[in-house]
């Protein structure tokens, strides 16, 4: 079988063999599982840990697990984490330096062996988020070597979206519930009268080899049509939408809008939206020394543009007000990201809406800015 081979079908047992095969290959398998009242991403040792029969009930500032009537595994919206937790970890050592009694200094790059990840259940919005981070972190003049190493070895198994949540708006960001190229395997889960099964397409040679190792059958017409139908239906069931305008221009032209004062009154500048966002990449660095004072390490950790220190210069922060910090985040995401990295920084996963403790809704804020700007709907 090759990457252009026809779609296949696996059942629950096949999913179990998939996880077992990846584990047997020595891969670190990461996928969804139920923990602490949420569907989180964690290392899986078998498919038994997948969230069979769990769904989620979402809204702005609200996230609840709910029992489903079926045994669907991937019928839940994006949880609090994204794959950046593994590809672009929250804390990472960059390099260390040692000083001899004579004063000679040597610098040593931290080059940890990259785990061979297999990400199981990557939603199409997150597949796009990974592609965006790829470009941000490895597409420029100075590629992030740690990210690049982890990313090159990671196998991506997408799960197409058939169950968007109330905070989802991927379609209005130019995406959709179907998986774009970039995956090694794409699964589409189907639960109907014919049973619980997954349509599987290979997107790479490695994915094709993996599929070959699973108990599978060639996709039948009914299963294919059912899978396509479920994904098409999901496209029309997005919980939210961004206004159909050129967002880059709208945000770029709204720097003086009154709406920023309104949202600043509600924003706690806690940075939750940046932590859960699958494309937010900002980091800071810190120096850590040992007790001898002759060994020092440089560490990188996630940072947030909502932090007052983020824009600190010697005379104080550039963006001191919550208004300026919220404006920075939203205009970066939807407008200046285009200038910097040739794409939007938003994939419409809805995490920032669900995990904002104040229930601030990005789509609502953009709609308000659009209304204030008085521009025509263009698209």
């Amino acid at each position: 079988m090759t990457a252009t081979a026809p779609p296949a079908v696996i059942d629950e047992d096949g999913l179990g063999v998939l996880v077992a095969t990846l584990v047997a290959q020595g891969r670190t398998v990461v996928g969804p599982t139920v923990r602490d009242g949420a569907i989180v991403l964690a290392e899986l040792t078998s498919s038994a840990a997948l969230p069979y029969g769990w769904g989620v009930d979402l809204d702005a500032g609200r996230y609840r697990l709910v029992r489903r009537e079926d045994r669907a595994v991937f019928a839940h919206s994006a949880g609090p984490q994204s794959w950046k937790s593994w590809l672009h970890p929250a804390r990472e050592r960059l390099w260390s330096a040692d000083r001899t009694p004579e004063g000679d200094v040597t610098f040593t790059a931290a080059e940890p062996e990259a785990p061979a990840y297999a990400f199981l259940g990557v939603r199409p919005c997150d597949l796009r988020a990974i592609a965006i981070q790829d470009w941000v972190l490895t597409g420029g003049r100075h590629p992030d070597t740690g990210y690049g190493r982890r990313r090159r070895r990671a196998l991506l198994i997408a799960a197409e979206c058939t169950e968007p949540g109330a905070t989802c708006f991927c379609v209005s960001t130019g995406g959709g519930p179907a998986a774009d190229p970039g995956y090694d395997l794409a699964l589409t889960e189907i639960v109907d009268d014919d049973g619980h099964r997954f349509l599987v397409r290979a997107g790479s040679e490695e994915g094709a080899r993996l599929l070959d190792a699973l108990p599978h059958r060639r996709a039948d017409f009914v299963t294919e049509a059912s899978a396509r139908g479920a994904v098409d239906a999901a496209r029309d069931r997005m919980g939210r939408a961004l206004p159909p305008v050129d967002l880059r221009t709208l945000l770029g032209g709204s720097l003086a809008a009154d709406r920023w004062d309104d949202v600043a009154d509600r924003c706690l500048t806690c940075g939750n939206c940046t932590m859960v966002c699958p494309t937010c990449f900002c980091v800071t660095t810190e120096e850590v020394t040992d007790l001898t004072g002759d060994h020092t390490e440089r560490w990188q950790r996630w940072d947030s543009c909502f932090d007052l220190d983020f824009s600190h210069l010697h005379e104080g922060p550039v963006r001191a007000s919550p208004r300026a910090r919220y404006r920075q985040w939203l205009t970066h995401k939807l407008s200046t990201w285009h200038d910097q990295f040739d794409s939007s920084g938003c994939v419409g996963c809805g995490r920032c809406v669900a995990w904002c403790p104040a229930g601030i809704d990005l789509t609502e804020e953009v709609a308000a800015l659009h209304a204030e700007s008085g521009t025509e709907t263009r698209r």
Partner: protein
Amino acid sequence: MSGLPVPHLVTDRRVETADTVTLRLEPVGAALAEFTPGQFAMVHSFGRGEIPLSVSSVQSTGGLAHTVRAVGAVSAGLCAARVGDVLGVHGPYGTGWELERARGRDVLVVAGGIGLAPLRPLVLEALADPGGYGRISVLVGARTPGDLIARDDLARWRTAYTAVTVDRPDAHWDGDVGVVTRLLDRAPFAPERTWAFVCGPEPMIRATARDLARLGVPPHRVRVSLERNMRCATGHCGHCQLGPLLICRDGPVVGWDRAEPLLSVREL
């Protein structure tokens, strides 16, 4: 993240002001790629961390040097470095002044305080090429006479015009008093055939660039060097954003045509 520091030996330490020194550096082993005037390096003080520092001298104009003012833990550590100490340096990063674009034109350099440091190699490069440029003028402003750096250079440079002004004179000062923009009237340059290079505190950059625009220097020929918080220098930490720009990648030197609309938005 990339950019492993390369050990550099401090070969000379020159005290510029009460809180500012210039450190001359030589690589202990393999050298970094050549810096061009206006670019910057990340310079590491052992156990304290690293900060971005413009080059105040480049390899081709007398070897690598940085001028650093003690304003925080890392810069204070660097200021305290002694000859023979080893510092970590990586770079070059960012855009340079691109002096060559001014070939055949008048060159106007306007500096505020320590902003003269990144302009110093540009002046040296221009002066090393007699006939390459039109008239070369250097205008410098400082808060007090004690805050002036590169005094020897200012006395030695054989430019068409060099002038210094201070905000607050002391008992010994008999020179100009006031903001640096007041010196523009006396400097010999023809606005329509001038390239201006400006570095200093943001209000000073704004005032200078606006006056130059009023005098008729086209905004894209006013090159300004901007400052934002930089943690990585490689475009990955996000700290140095100024609207669409990542200053470490798209700057620090940009044309006033790009900088003006951004610097006119409060808290951008």
